[in-house]
């Protein structure tokens, strides 16, 4: 089981993961599951009617628009980073939060490194499966390295231009 770190109001904690991530060719276990977009499109309605919590795993070349109408019934959107250099999910994360108002968990999985923690968090990711063995303390420190930021994004941080205010 990969480590799951959750960030809530800036504080990182190690979390128990109630979800089982299921590949397309695996049988579905009992309980809460994270499944691919394809599988969700085929079996999502049935799973939801069974009363389980469902998460969807989005690949880097998939776009969150396709989930627009399903988001209210999703517990998790897992964004899969094939390589840390692939930045498409930063846009997906911001759109989930800012455009679609998604309030469930946005989880970063795949090639997820401490160097990216702050950027991901700022784009609205609040759960992480680090691939570099980072501890929650290291993760939290990485998100707090900068005392200021220059942009408004999907997090609650005040950008520099607001901090400066109407002087």
């Amino acid at each position, binding site marked *: 089981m990969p480590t799951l770190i959750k960030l809530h109001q800036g504080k990182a904690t190690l979390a128990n993961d109630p979800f089982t991530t299921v590949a397309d060719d695996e049988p579905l276990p009992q309980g809460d599951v994270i499944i691919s977009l394809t599988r969700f499109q085929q079996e999502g309605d049935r799973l939801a009617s069974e009363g389980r919590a469902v998460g969807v795993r989005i690949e880097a070349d998939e*776009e969150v628009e396709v989930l627009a109408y399903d988001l209210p019934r999703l517990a998790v959107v897992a964004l899969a980073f094939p390589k*840390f*250099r*692939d*930045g*498409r999910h*930063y*846009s997906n994360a*911001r759109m989930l939060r*800012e*455009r679609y108002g998604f309030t469930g968990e946005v989880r970063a999985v795949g090639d997820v490194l401490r*160097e*990216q923690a*702050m*950027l*991901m968090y*700022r*784009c609205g990711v609040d759960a992480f499966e680090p691939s570099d063995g980072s501890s929650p303390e290291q993760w939290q420190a990485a998100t707090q*390295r*900068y*005392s*200021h*930021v*220059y*942009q*408004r*994004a999907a997090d609650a941080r005040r950008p*520099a*231009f*607001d*901090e*400066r*205010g*109407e*002087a």
Partner: protein
Amino acid sequence: MYHYDAIDKEFVADRAAEFRAQVARRLAGEINEDQFKPIRLMNGLYLQLHAYMLRIAIPYGTLTSAKLHKLAYIARTYDKDYGHFTTRTNLQLHWIKLKDAPEILDHLAEVEMHSMQTSGNVIRNVTADPYAGATADELDDPRVWSEAIRQWSTLHPEFSFLPRKFKIAVTAAVKDRAATRIYDIGLALRRGRDGELGFEVMVGGGLGRTPYLAPTIREFLPTRHLLSYLEAILRVYNRHGRRDNVWKARIKVLVASLGAEEFARQVEEEWGKLKPSVADLPDHELARIRAGFTPEFEALPAVSERLEARKAADPAFARFLRRNVHAHKAAGYAIVDISLKEPGETPGDITSGQMDIVAELGKRYSRDEIRVNYQQNLLLPHVRLDDLPEVYDALAAVRLATPNIDLISDIIACPGLDYCALANARAIPIAQQIAERFADPALAEDVGEFRIKISGCINACGHHHVGNIGILGVDKKGEEFYQLTLGGSGDNDATLGQMLGPALPAARVADAVEQLVLVYRRERADDERFLDTYRRVGLAPFKEAVYADAH
């Protein structure tokens, strides 16, 4: 000149502290070179042929005396006593030791500088018209908008892992001195019919392996919406730019494959969905930035008797005035271009001692401002006409008064195979050989405006596609060869050059340039520039001259 406030200062200090910790982990062996590479690249630290190279950002090419003195100090203390200015108006130091890098960043932070986003697939250092705030033909100071872009793009959470690097150039003047059509985004300020200011937005220019001039995707964007519109462009690119092939990952390929119209439609659609208040700066912040760019000039007579007297008595000074001194918007002032292209020297190189002199002159005579332009030269933007004799003498004493701005020896050249791990061929010696053929200032002046641009490989850091003569280094079975193109321009009439013929061996290049100049001088009518003559008579007579022996 904009000065950092406490927030900007803490930001670069945080950055320097973060990098110090990362270098310590690398030196202690806790992370390997593969893991360290993306980290150092985010701080402009490259590993080149012989050593680490540090690329220091000079946002919109603007320096103060303190900054330039600091660059001189760093080059003297940690490098070989010189630095190299690039076509992105950055300074490169080519002989850096990894262990010194954190200390250098601390030094830079002291003078409100950094090396962030001078490499990697991010929004790079923004460039602007080098005559900003000094030229009469501008509608506004483009640095207000450039500084807004600098801050917005710094560690942008969504756009730090783009498909490829991303370069923005800004001009607010009629004459394009920032080569806006050859960058990922070019912004040119225009006045709308109702008198409002807005940007013409050009997207998808770029040189490299497949050169494109950027098409205009929006004729007029009200200035207050600049950042939200940039956010929309970057989001479309971040999501849809190619990531499967590094050679096709620049935004120019996306724009070309969709077509400018469809790309524009996607941007407009995305922009329509963005909340402008998220990215666009509030008025109080724009006013705060603007306050940093409101120089005041003394009321001076338009003519200086001191200057006129010296000009009449000293032909070398008169030539310097003709070539290197340009009109200022305020009466009694001038813009002084400083050539870093003395024939025989490396284009863009400058010693620490020279940097210190220019820094002093900037402080005493140019309202504490020094600029860098993409031609790899420096300039003093606000010099009083009365002071020009002193400034000229001080520059001449350190060999910085070469009167060749925009002439045939004012050559752009990338570092090439002398330094760069990507290069196929050397660029510097070719530039030196050509410049030496035209070292006689009277000859160079007679030949007139003539832009030669040299790149050591297809990545085109030397902008060869937009050179009047472009020279591209290629490797032919281990030998350095050079491909010539003619007729390129990076100005308002931006044009990509046409191939002259088969690549030439290194020993033939300077001869070929001389032959091309001979044809031009034979064919030119009245006071035509090389580019005008070329456009009128075409490629054939030039090709005939260079390849005559081959028949």
